[in-house]
């Protein structure tokens, strides 16, 4: 049984400019202990996907449907209250983007980490605090951090606090939304090492959201590439990185600077589409060098070049 099965997930926002399909017909499957990297430019809908999975939605929702099956439980059948009590944070936790603003500035961080645990029935304050201390230790944070306020901690420490907070209820799946984007390279490496270790030691499943393909490839077993609210390509790390099927993924790979290569990093021509006025047909076609008539008319279906690889592009039609 798959840990997480998402099919035809849609999350549309109602904005002043019109309806914005932030997440559109997204389907994916994650196995236990697996790390899936969700990659894309900013505005591609990565964070909205995370919010849709956590069901922490903003007010201006125009549409939210699809099936999210977690450990065989169809979450869409659960009420908000049931979902909050049974799934959120206990089974699926999340590390939010921007650790700077994700902590309550007037509460000691240790207590913030302990909070979800304290809400569990039968957990005493001492037990909870001891658990927090263990988490801090696991994340290589000194114990006195417990008594600190967020503004007294460095960015890297705060991010690790956020991870500790996500892990406090021992969830099966952790969603990490750009956990390292605001940090400098050294801290970034530290955090990545911590994550790798946790994945190995705890058998944690990770949904890793990033705009950095290299970072994703470092940690993940599988990659999903998002563009304009859709997953346009997904598959194992090997498949996606070595044989990118979608012209967008190819372009994205070409933008990554390489240490040992003479090749100059390329830019993807054009700009991401206006999400409230998406082009007809394939959403990437105005920027695509291979676009042909059909791309301008019809939205491509997902094709499978091989069982572990899926591409949403007309170029793959008819191929095995």
């Amino acid at each position: 049984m798959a840990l997480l099965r998402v099919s035809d997930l849609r999350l549309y926002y109602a904005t002043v400019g019109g309806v914005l399909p932030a997440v559109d017909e997204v389907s994916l499957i994650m196995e236990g202990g697996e790390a899936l990297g969700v990659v894309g430019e900013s505005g591609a809908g990565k964070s909205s996907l995370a919010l849709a999975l956590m069901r922490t939605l903003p007010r201006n929702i125009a549409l939210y449907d699809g099936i999210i099956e977690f450990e065989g439980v169809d979450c869409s059948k659960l009420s908000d209250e049931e979902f909050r009590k049974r799934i959120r944070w206990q089974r699926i936790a999340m590390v939010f983007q921007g650790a700077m603003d994700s902590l309550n500035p007037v509460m000691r961080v240790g207590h913030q980490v302990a909070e979800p645990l304290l809400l569990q029935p039968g957990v005493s304050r001492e037990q909870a605090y001891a658990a927090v201390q263990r988490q801090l230790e696991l994340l290589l944070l000194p114990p006195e951090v417990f008594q600190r306020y967020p503004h007294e901690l460095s960015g890297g420490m705060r991010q690790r606090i956020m991870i500790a907070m996500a892990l406090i209820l021992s969830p099966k799946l952790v969603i990490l939304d750009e956990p390292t984007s605001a940090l400098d390279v050294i801290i970034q490496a530290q955090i990545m090492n911590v994550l790798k270790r946790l994945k190995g030691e705890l058998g944690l499943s990770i949904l890793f959201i990033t705009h950095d393909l290299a970072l994703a490839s470092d940690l993940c077993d599988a990659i999903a590439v998002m563009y304009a609210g859709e997953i346009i390509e997904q598959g194992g790390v090997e498949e996606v990185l070595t044989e990118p099927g979608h012209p967008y993924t190819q372009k994205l790979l070409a933008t990554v600077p390489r240490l040992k290569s003479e090749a100059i990093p390329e830019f993807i021509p054009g700009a991401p589409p206006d999400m409230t006025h998406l082009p007809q047909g394939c959403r990437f076609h105005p920027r695509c060098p291979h676009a042909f008539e059909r791309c301008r008319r019809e939205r491509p279906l997902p094709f499978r070049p091989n069982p572990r690889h899926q591409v949403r592009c007309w170029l793959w039609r008819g191929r095995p």
Partner: protein
Amino acid sequence: MSLATTLALRGFTLFCVLLVVLLLVVITLGATGFSDRMLQATISEEMRGLRQSLAQTIRDPDQLEQVLHSRHQQLIDYYHLDKPWYFRLPNTVSQVLTLDLGEARTMRSFKGSSRVADIVMERLPNTILLVTTAMLITAVIGLLAGVRLATRAGSRADRVVSFFLASSYALPAWWVGIFLILIFSFKFALFPSGGMYSLPPPQEGMARLLDLLRHAALPIITLVLVSFGVWTYVVRTMVLNTAQEPFVSVARAKGLPEPLVRRRYILRVAAPPILTNLTLGLAGSIGGAILTETVFNWPGMGRLYYDAIMAADESIIIALTFIFTLVYIIARFILEVSYIILDPRIRYV
């Protein structure tokens, strides 16, 4: 910076405010010749009394004049009236700072004392009673209504109510008071139009308290009416700003129940900025108290101020200017301390 240093710095600034006000008062009085005239008036008053009492004992007019003259010189010497006003400045400043406020010219305390300190101390509790009660009521209404409004921000009701709240800024306290007197006192005779107790005041405890409440109702309603709008608006805005912070979404994602999120992540975090905004309104409420007491003839310091202006009693006016600043600064300092307690970011910066 440690907690103590932060507090000390705020305390010092506020002390500077007090000093500046005092200097402003003393220099204005000196430079305009006002203080000379006041001292001369005091001396002639004393001389008149002396002449009357001495006239009984000293029969010889020449001798009387001589004695009076030497006494006059003595007094001028004593008050340093022979020197320009700025030589008297340090003395005056230190006198006022030690709350040695002098004698009133014409006004008396209810018990008949002419010492300014007696007159003021008699009234101070009445003012504090009125203002703190009004402020407490305002705070409760403001917090409840503000939070309620913030949860339905953007709705038509919110827009309309916010608009009316903001416009209550345009209401002068004294006019609202007059309006209430006309309606509830003159037209419907529900409440007395002024004063603190009926005449004669009821002696028995319960009746006395009820009488006080009846008299305090209109002034308190006035103060609440003119200030709760701004309070509510401030609370609403601050709560709304805080509710949009990422850590609130995090708290919800953590699975915390909504009341806890609201209390611990929104209200608690919004408290310091709410407090700051209210600190700024504190000076305004002192003005409101002066005018409201005047309208309702409430025997507090505000009404005393008005009476002193009408009677042109300088020493009381000066003393009250100083006392009002002092009261304001003390209140301000209390708020600053609570701010520091509420917001750890200030505490350790």
